[in-house]
């Protein structure tokens, strides 16, 4: 190996200003390498790092020593050690992850996301692919296009990577045989066409021998295309956010150092902007004009996609974090129901109906998912029926957001069409989604305003509408206490309605069982009914086990501030199980009753209920009195 060229660096004699200028103006290409152990992916990445002359002498010496000691290449340099050597240190007890490598050539700078190939690492691959502009799919020429390669190709395309390079590696091991290469390419082309990839680039290489990496290989004169590195250097880049289009910037932060300055800070997702341009704030749809484009380095007279800036507007308009400043015309679509492709990333399976946080752009809203329409078999692209999605599974489903959001289909704009889902309790990122299209345009379903308002209705009854939400284990006394409270309220002429768990399951919810998903839907419907009743001005008392915090929070969020009063009927499991009024605990213990709260299904106790009744210290009458007095304090 010709080490001397790395020692001195080819820039040694170059004018430093020219060097800096060129380095600064290099474009950046982010790409992902897909493949698995044995495909020679690490050797290929190591070779790229080596060829780009980014290694210092001490690293090089180390590599040569390690190659002799640990390498699998005899006396030759084992390039894989450059990548795997790092991995060995990295992997001490930590899950295999996306690793990033950095190198540069005379023309371009590269950030490589190196991801593991196996199906159980789909989550990691998706993460690496989300910021990549190009994917190198490494194929072992001895093995051809495997099921795994198909999955990589599908996922890269799904994540919007338009440039896919098939690197057919280990050509040296098959005698640089053109016909083998062409058979692999034809196999790939057939699959890629089904996926929807129109441009097919395939390069026969040997990461180990260096064939077609930097220079065209003498061993494969039949190949007339560019070597890999030259292809990576020559590729024309689009902005990471997608195709060029109208101006759009999610507002990240309100910049207000003093009363005389109110700026909107964000990163431009698409398009360009100039002072004087008319803009629209979404979702409010108010319009205004750009006054200044403010930066630390002075005002700009134009800014474009990818830049982090601060805008000031001519007119004072209401605009906060999460909203979007966009070109006044044509406006972005706004909707609250979507067909989406969903990639599930959590060990706990998707729960249809559960309320998750959705983060899209800079806004966070509550959202829920329907049962998947189908799951995609990522190896065959076939569709299979399913009721949920487990870790690493991909499906198509309906997403409903709690309020309308501005969006663009993912295929058009990654920033406005890609989102993550966050578990409200654990705060984990549990899913990634791509908006396909809106199912229901928000502007088509107007809220019908009525002349008699909910306030009128409550005033007529001389009361304040509230929801008294009792939660607790089965047999804790919710229904009995609720009944006693309602009695007290009617005695002072309050208009009430008691929604009881058992009763509702006889009618409205008789189609629901006791699985986690059905329990969520049960509570959602009760929440909606309770909301209608508060609109009618009633004091609503509910008695449901309602075991999950998420759903109780969901109902709380449906109501106006101060209308939802959570009452925790706190009874220890041992006590209710001993009483076992309905004989249900005995059945559950005997295994005759599945998903029973407290036995084989969890109860998540409220952390800060408005009222807590300790049933070990309080009689039914005392409990009813405590709650009754509290209701009077809450404005009745």
């Amino acid at each position, binding site marked *: 190996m010709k080490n001397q060229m790395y020692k001195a660096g080819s820039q040694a004699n170059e004018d*430093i200003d020219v060097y800096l200028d060129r380095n600064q103006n290099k474009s950046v290409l982010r790409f992902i390498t897909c493949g698995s152990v044995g495909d020679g992916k690490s050797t290929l990445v190591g070779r790229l790092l080596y060829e780009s002359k980014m290694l210092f002498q001490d690293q090089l010496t180390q590599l040569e020593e390690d190659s002799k000691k640990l390498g699998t290449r005899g006396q030759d340099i084992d390039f894989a050690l450059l990548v795997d050597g790092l991995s060995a240190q990295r992997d001490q007890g930590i899950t295999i992850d996306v690793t990033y490598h950095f190198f540069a050539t005379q023309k371009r700078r590269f950030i490589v996301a190196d991801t593991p190939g196996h199906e159980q690492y789909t989550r990691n691959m998706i993460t690496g692919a989300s910021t990549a502009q190009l994917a190198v799919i490494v194929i072992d020429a001895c093995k051809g296009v495997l099921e795994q390669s198909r999955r990589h190709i599908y996922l890269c395309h799904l994540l919007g990577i338009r440039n896919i390079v098939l690197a057919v590696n280990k050509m040296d091991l098959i005698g640089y045989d053109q016909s083998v290469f062409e058979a692999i390419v034809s196999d790939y082309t057939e699959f890629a066409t089904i996926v929807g990839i129109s441009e097919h680039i395939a390069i026969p290489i040997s990461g180990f021998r260096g064939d077609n990496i930097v220079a065209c290989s003498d061993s494969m004169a039949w190949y007339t295309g560019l070597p890999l590195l030259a292809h990576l250097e020559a590729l024309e880049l689009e902005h990471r956010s997608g195709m060029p289009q109208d101006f759009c910037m999610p507002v990240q932060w309100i910049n207000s150092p003093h009363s005389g300055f109110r700026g909107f800070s964000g990163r431009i997702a698409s398009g360009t902007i100039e002072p004087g341009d008319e803009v629209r704030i979404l979702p409010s749809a108010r319009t205004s004009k750009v006054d200044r484009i403010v930066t630390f380095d002075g005002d*700009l007279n134009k800014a474009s996609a990818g830049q982090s800036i601060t805008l000031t507007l001519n007119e004072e308009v209401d605009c906060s974090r999460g909203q979007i400043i966009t070109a006044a015309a044509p406006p972005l679509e706004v909707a609250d129901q979507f067909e989406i492709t969903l990639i599930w990333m959590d060990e706990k399976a998707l729960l249809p109906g559960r309320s998750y946080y959705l983060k899209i752009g800079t806004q966070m809203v509550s959202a829920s998912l329907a049962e998947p329409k189908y799951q995609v078999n990522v190896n065959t692209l076939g569709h299979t029926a399913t009721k949920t999605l487990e870790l690493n599974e991909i499906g198509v489903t309906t997403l409903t957001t709690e309020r309308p959001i501005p969006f663009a289909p993912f295929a058009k704009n990654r*920033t406005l069409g890609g989102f993550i889902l966050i578990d409200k309790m654990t705060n984990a990122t549990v899913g990634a989604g791509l908006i396909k299209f809106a199912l229901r345009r928000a502007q088509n379903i107007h809220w019908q305003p009525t002349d008699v308002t909910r306030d009128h209705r409550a005033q007529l009854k001389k009361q304040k509408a509230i929801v008294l939400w009792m939660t607790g284990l089965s047999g804790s006394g919710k229904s009995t206490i609720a009944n006693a409270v309602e009695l007290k309220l009617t005695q002072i002429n309050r208009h009430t309605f008691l929604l009881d768990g058992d009763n509702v399951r006889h009618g409205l919810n008789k189609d629901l069982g006791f699985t986690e998903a059905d329990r969520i839907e049960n509570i959602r419907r009760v929440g909606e009914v309770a909301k209608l009743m508060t609109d009618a001005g009633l004091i609503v008392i509910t008695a449901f086990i309602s075991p999950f915090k998420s759903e109780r929070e969901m109902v709380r969020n449906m109501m106006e501030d101060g209308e939802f009063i959570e009452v925790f009927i706190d009874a220890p499991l041992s006590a209710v199980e001993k009483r076992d009024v309905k004989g249900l605990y005995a059945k559950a213990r005997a295994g005759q009753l599945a998903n029973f709260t407290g036995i084989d299904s969890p109860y998540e106790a409220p952390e800060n209920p408005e009222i807590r009744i300790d049933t070990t210290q309080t009689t039914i009458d005392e409990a009813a009195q405590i709650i009754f007095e509290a209701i009077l304090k809450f404005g009745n």
Partner: protein
Amino acid sequence: MTQMAPSQNNLSELESDAIEIMREVVSEAKNPVMLYSVGKTSAVMLHLAKKAFFPSSPPFPLMHVDTTWEFQEIYKLRDKAAQDAGMELIIHQNSEAMEIGINPFEHGVLHTEIWKAEELKQAPDNYGFDATFDGARRNDVTSRVSDRILSFRSAQHRLASRAQRPELWSLYNARIAAGESIRVFPLANWTELDIWQYIYIERIDVVPLYFAALRPTVERDGMLLMVDDERFPLEQGEIPVMRSIRFRTLGCYPLTGALESEAATLIEVIQEMFLTTTSERQGRAIGN
């Protein structure tokens, strides 16, 4: 001053990335802080913070973990830089280490461990910080290649490896439970050349120790150490020699090795950097 927007290139993209990350974290965290070591990466990170929130001052304090064994030049630049940025400067000294009287001459590795590791635990507890900006780069030390931009720590300050979150696009999920905290690496994708080049283009003030000058030195275990103040215990027969040296990294002065160099200006340093044949961390007795 009005100017044309620069076309998106290498450094401007890295700059916009870092600004976006800082603004997201400031919006979602309750009580962020920026670690400020006064070194070259810290200088760049502070500069980016000024840009991210201009015309406001960065809405968080700077925190310098002061081992009391820093180079004297560090202290000089530190106070000025914080003042120029209009930011509060918290100087955190490890009370436990101070009490034991731990020092780098006698305790070597232990000194660094206690200071640098304990800082991460004491600081969040003492000040209630829930997000800490940290200038670490993915390609600085090999163990960082897979670090995420946002790294989550449990309430016991452990790196909660199972709780690390996938980072898609630039959608950062900074939601945490009470007591948990986040390390944020806005410069994750910068290389050492990027740092130097950005300092050059943006004319950022850095500690003069990065530039060669005649300084009193002694040679120990193959490492050149600078005799920075009278606390440096000279061994018998050891006489400091004036040498033209500079530093690639700055840790505690008794543990940080210098390079013999004539590169006295930024441009000369950059030029020398790319003739250099050792990687950055070699100059430090102890990686941290």
